[in-house]
């Protein structure tokens, strides 16, 4: 985080940047942080979810099909947060 603050302070202190350039620099330097932070929660969530699904399948192999479908559903819902983070990354970096 201090790197982000450092970049922001440098950009703000320098007077020879136009507003658009300053926005570009700040956006590019915060894009990585935005995606990194957005990936933490879904990463933990998907790991826990798949771990529990594997456990369920190991305990009851006959219900593996149903567990798998439910697992994919859960992954899809959890993963959406990380993907919105990725879209935010693209927006910060390139738009």
């Amino acid at each position, binding site marked *: 985080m*201090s*790197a982000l603050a450092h970049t922001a302070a440098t950009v703000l202190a320098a007077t020879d940047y136009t507003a658009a350039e300053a926005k570009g620099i700040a956006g590019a330097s915060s894009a990585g942080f935005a995606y990194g932070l957005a990936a933490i929660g879904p990463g933990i969530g998907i790991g826990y979810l798949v771990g529990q699904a594997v456990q369920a399948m190991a305990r009851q192999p006959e219900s593996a*099909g*149903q567990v798998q*479908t439910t697992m*994919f559903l859960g*992954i899809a819902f959890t993963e959406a947060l990380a993907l*919105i983070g990725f*879209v935010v990354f*693209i927006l910060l970096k390139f738009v």
Partner: protein
Amino acid sequence: MLGLQTLVGNLTNIALLASEGEGGGGVQFPPIENIVKWPALFGEGSFYAFNKIALISMIAMIVPALLFYFAGRKASLVPKKLQNIMEASLDFVEKQVIMPAIGPEGMRYLPMLVAMVFFIWIGNVFEVIPTSHMPANARMANPLMLAMTAWVMFIGVGVKHNGLGYFKSALFPPGVPKALYLLVTPIEFLSTFLIRPFSLAVRLFANMLAGHILLVTFSVLCITLWGFTPLVLVELLSFPMLVAFTGFEFMVAFLQAFIFALLTAVYIGGALHPEH
């Protein structure tokens, strides 16, 4: 954190030094315009402008139609060859998508879900097909239209089977204390009618775009590092990664089509029986 900064600074210096050895430049990533702006193959600027994405979408529409036409033209009781494959795909959608998400009465939605799976899957698979290397669903327009189809579909099914009571049961879930409706109803409205189609579209779009950018990154690394410099040793790492990710994206292409159809089925199932 300060140590990290110094490390990053050192790495940047090393990378700059290394790139100067090849006459400057370093790793040149293609600009983002390459996946945002597509020149038209013909009819530039007019209503009939037709670019690569439109071509891939047309292929993704025509190929399944032809496959099902030829599979069903001389349908026999004991399926052979093509008919066998297509029946297996219908069976997959029935067993993996409809039965767990809707139940037996969901079989009437089989044509729509199968069409969705095939359109999304074939559009996605062009991500790893040489000479194309672009998934049609990495443009927001395609996932958005598909998500709006699903949105209209599940609201339509809900209204058809439950009348306007569908909105009542969706917005005012039973068994909640009266005062809490102030809190619950706006949340339910947002999550059911706005966030559902949005997340459905963004899930497909961002997955395919991320996969495309991932493959581009490793391809660019492989191309740039190729030469008589010590950096060519990195190729030993980056090229197997490119191959592995190509295989991974081939899997993701199908998984996203499956998940899109599964979520559509879940939403339709929820609209059919809003009490659950």
